[in-house]
């Protein structure tokens, strides 16, 4: 017995000791789906999944933003407070000052970008740790939010039909189906086109099985999601917003020079600087993007709740987003992580919270479970990489 045990164990170890990619988070989602469905068959109903998408939207946008900062090896603790303050500004401009909706939203996003400029500029100019600068920022922005909303007795109702409509409107069904089919055909076509072009250029193509999986997912996911949503009200606008932001960020990080430089700075900031990458301005821009996305999340959060209060963006908002990014495979050391992973990480957190709420569990259980999942995700990642940030031999 003792002679045979080492072999399988080392095989498991070598299997674990490689880049796991998106598999842990995908398998995690499957386990969540099956487990909660067995416990309560309302979990995978169209109604619940549709609601879950709405519940995920704000967290997803914050997660996508904070993931970019984590890629640089930095952190932004202020995103919750920024979303609260910018939502408060939008509320005041819309409900009290009578600004049109578009102007109020634009002002909120602009304030977010300015906050990002201040924080990022401070971090770069004074070589201050982002943890401290954004922690200080969090306190200051929370204070300003309180200052703005205290005269309104802490809460402001949002009545503008355009703003509230963002969070409670759905695409007409034919338009939803058309969109799902276009995305499915586009995804399949893109995989095929890329394969043809790659093989024609004489360069090594991916294994055919991997492209088949890509096509199955690219067609199956949009059609499947549409089938589910069709059983309730259809495609919510919030989903479109999240998908648009995800798509843009996925292209930026994956296919542009700017995106390549983000990974380079996160991987080796000194090397990036020496090869002429403008590291400082890149870092500032990322902090601006993050805070701008936080502002969008704040606007959507206010739209969903028909109000903005002193609690908007408070509590665990920022920390949940950071946890989601890490669960989705983003490294806190910088240089590693994907946009899709971050999105799936946000889905893990919101689906667990949704599932536990469906089972009548109190908030305490939801928070504790989220913490344990985060711990499990990080531990699995560390074991897989042999405690080195990028794995590999050295």
């Amino acid at each position, binding site marked *: 017995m003792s002679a045979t045990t080492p072999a399988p164990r080392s095989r498991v170890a070598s299997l674990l000791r490689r880049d796991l990619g998106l598999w842990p988070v995908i398998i995690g989602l499957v386990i969540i789906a099956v487990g909660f469905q067995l416990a309560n068959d309302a979990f995978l109903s169209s109604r619940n999944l549709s609601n879950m998408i709405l519940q995920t939207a704000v967290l997803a946008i914050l997660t996508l933003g904070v993931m970019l900062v984590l890629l640089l090896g930095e952190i932004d603790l202020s995103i919750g407070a920024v979303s609260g303050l910018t939502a408060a500004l939008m509320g005041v401009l819309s409900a009290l000052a009578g600004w049109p909706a578009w102007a109020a939203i634009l002002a909120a996003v602009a304030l977010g970008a300015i906050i990002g400029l201040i924080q990022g500029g401070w971090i770069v100019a004074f070589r201050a740790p982002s943890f401290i600068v954004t922690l200080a920022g969090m306190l200051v922005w929370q204070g300003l939010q309180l200052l703005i909303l205290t005269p309104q007795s802490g809460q402001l109702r949002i009545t503008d039909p355009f703003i509230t409509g963002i969070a409670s409107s759905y695409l007409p069904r034919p338009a939803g189906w058309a969109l799902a089919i276009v995305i499915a055909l586009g995804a399949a076509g893109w995989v095929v086109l890329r394969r043809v*072009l*790659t093989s024609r*250029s004489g*360069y*090594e193509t991916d294994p055919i099985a991997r492209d088949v999986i890509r096509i199955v997912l690219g067609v199956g996911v949009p059609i499947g999601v549409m089938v589910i949503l069709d059983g309730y009200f259809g495609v919510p606008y919030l989903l479109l917003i999240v998908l648009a932001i995800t798509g843009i960020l996925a*292209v*930026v990080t994956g*296919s*542009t*020079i*700017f*995106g*390549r*430089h983000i*990974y*380079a700075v*996160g*991987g*080796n900031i*000194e*090397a*990036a600087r*020496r*090869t*002429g*990458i403008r590291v400082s301005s890149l870092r500032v821009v990322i902090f601006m993007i993050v805070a701008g996305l936080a502002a969008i999340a704040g606007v959507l959060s206010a739209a969903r709740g028909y109000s903005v209060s002193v609690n908007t963006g408070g509590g665990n908002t920022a920390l949940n987003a950071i946890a989601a990014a890490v669960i989705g495979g983003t490294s806190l050391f910088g*240089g*590693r992580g994907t946009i899709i992973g971050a999105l799936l990480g946000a889905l893990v957190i919101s689906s667990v919270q949704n599932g536990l709420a469906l089972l009548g569990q109190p908030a305490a259980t939801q928070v504790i479970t989220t913490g344990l999942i985060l711990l499990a995700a990080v531990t699995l990642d560390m074991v897989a990489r042999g405690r*080195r*940030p*990028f*794995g*590999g*031999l*050295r």
Partner: protein
Amino acid sequence: MRSIRKSFGNVEALRGVDLTVQPGEIMALVGDNGAGKSTLVKTLAGVHIADQGTIEVDGVPVSMAGPQDAVRAGVETVYQDLALCDNLDVVANLYLGRELRSPARGPLARFLAGKRMSFEATRILDELAVTLPSLRAQVATLSGGQRQAIAVGRAVLWGSRIVVLDEPTAALGVQQTAMVYRLVRTLKERGISVVLISHNMVDVFEVADRVTVLRLGANAGVFDTSTDKPSDVIAAITGSDAITAAEGLR
């Protein structure tokens, strides 16, 4: 480089040093710790600005006000830490900071020309006879010699005419060292000049054509590896009696 002088406060690191490298020549630069090797090389790389002296590339004086000037003059320095991004693949590292741009460009974004970079990278690595598991391999997964090869390949890819290698084999095993030697000779065949900093006399006599010795911030002789003996070079480095014999060879 002629009569290069450089002081840091009261310390005179370089006291009028000359260094000449012919096209396609491998020049070793040796000397004890504190002899001024690093300072001289950093002056050539534009990291330090010389207090006095001239630097000429192909007979044209170059004013070195920063690293960008060195790069523009065709001087690439491969430092000991290699300046690689472990999280990126081979192609991304070869093109780090100078990514090729796709002709398809959006209103805001500049897109990567991934295919073209892969193609060029394959060509350059073939020419340098560097074998890697895959161009898409993360650099973190490569051996020390392969990493060195990528750093050198980057210098070649960027069209430099003088490549400075700082202790390239310091951390390498026997096989990896042989691979770097091969690489350095390939550079020579391409007409690229190589300045090789080394502590290792075996290294020096294995690959270099000539050896410039620095001692206490001044020249202590230039030797030819085909006619001179390692003991002469070592004598020049340490400044023992044999230096008088070596002086005659300058």
